[in-house]
């Protein structure tokens, strides 16, 4: 399967690399459990028509104001809405989450509203307040350790009723899913751990099987 990575601005190359790592089998260091190789190819997306060739889309970390500006210029907003309406999964990290959220604060700005959460931008502070933490995600009913790198990260201030919280840090949701939309306030693509990307690949695989 092919998964697009929105390559307008941000750490899109790291997401493509993370998907490439999913192509080989991995073994969980703590449980020894093996993850099979995933048949996935990353495609960098710079024009809306390039979305037609992919089954899922990752919106990377970067600057959300820059991303929105570049998305606007190329009419990505209707294209992504159509992509979502077709049931194709979307995964947003950090700025990608901000772009996908229902409501955005500090400052208020346009967002796609494809997941019912409210986010506050740069809510931990400036770069000196960026941090790493070891957290736990609950994926498919299993508890899995995840290294979380928070960089000028947003905080999810409200989680809508239809939204499932998949991971918490300090009692707050930092990863969530509503149907085909997955979001994280941290950056799994900055670590070697492919757990979160494998989970997203699985969402895409299942969506393609039912399409």
């Amino acid at each position: 399967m092919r998964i697009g990575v929105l390559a307008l601005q941000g750490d899109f190359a790291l997401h493509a690399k993370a998907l490439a790592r999913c192509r080989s089998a991995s073994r969980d260091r703590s449980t020894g459990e093996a993850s099979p190789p995933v048949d996935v190819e990353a495609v960098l997306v710079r024009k809306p028509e390039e979305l037609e060739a992919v089954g899922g889309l990752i919106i990377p970390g970067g600057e959300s104001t820059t991303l929105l500006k570049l998305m606007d210029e190329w009419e990505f907003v209707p294209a992504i809405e159509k992509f979502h309406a077709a049931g194709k999964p979307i995964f947003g990290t950090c700025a990608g989450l901000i772009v996908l959220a229902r409501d955005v604060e500090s400052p208020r700005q346009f967002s796609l509203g494809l997941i019912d959460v409210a986010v506050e931008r740069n809510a931990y502070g400036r770069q000196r307040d960026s941090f790493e933490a070891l957290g736990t995600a609950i994926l498919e009913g299993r508890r899995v350790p995840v290294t979380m790198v928070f960089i000028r990260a947003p905080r999810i201030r409200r989680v809508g009723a239809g939204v499932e919280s998949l991971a918490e840090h300090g009692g707050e949701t930092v990863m969530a899913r509503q149907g085909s939309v997955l979001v994280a306030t941290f950056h799994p693509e900055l670590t070697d751990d492919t757990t979160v990307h494998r989970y997203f690949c699985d969402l895409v695989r299942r969506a393609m099987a039912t399409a």
Partner: protein
Amino acid sequence: MSELDEIRIADRKHIGLAEMLKGGVIMDVTTAEQAKIAEDAGAASVMALERVPADIRKDGGVARMASVTKIKEIQKTVSIPVMAKARIGHFVEAQILEALGVDFIDESEVLTPADEHFHIDKFAFRIPFVCGARDLGEALRRIGEGAAMIRTKGEAGSGNIVEAVRHMRAITSGIRRLTTLSPEELMTEAKNLGAPYELVRCVARTGKLPVPNFSAGGIATPADAALMMQLGAEAVFVGSGIFKSSDPARRARAIVQATTHSKDADVLARVSEELGEAMVGIETSKLAEKDLLQTRGW
């Protein structure tokens, strides 16, 4: 293997912020109004400074860190990361910028150096640093001191891309050369480069710098930005090029587009239309050695 094999480089969260800026444009601004124009145009970050390099070159005198008041105003005005410059070796300016909560410090040759022998120990700070480099050895020395991002020095304030091209080509061809060397050649190469051996080994193995590699110094047009991206830059800094042009907002938007779509000549042609006058450039080969900014630092 022993613990001595560990290479110390900048924190992952700091290199991570540089990763988030990739494919973006970092714009020099001297006022809150300019910062707003830059953010509205799609800048990924702004660099706060007292005078743009072209004015520093023209006016002369000692160029220092921007005023605290100005930095605070800019921080209040925009939501994107705010960078600021500290003089080479001036670790107290860096301490002040850290206290202000600046997101990235540029230890910059554009300002008048404070120390002729030593750069700042960047590991001593809780915020990341970007440093200029003219070649691979200089890039690796700065990374060895803890820089989380490297940028070409180019020749700031010249509006002439030739020096940035020279520096980017020197860095990328230096990297390519390392990947062709046998293990026994690497120590001699480290000596010749004046670079930490462990970092030389790391680059020889991976074929890239361990931190993002951006470009700065002389970018004045969308074509200049795209040229640097095609030569291997992962993002660009634009100094005097925007606010010394006749229509800064329009030029800023065009450079943002050109950086994202650097390989798409149709897009480049479209965004290059009707931009007004670019900044006036300087023939850098006619500059006297003493007037060059790039030879500051080592």
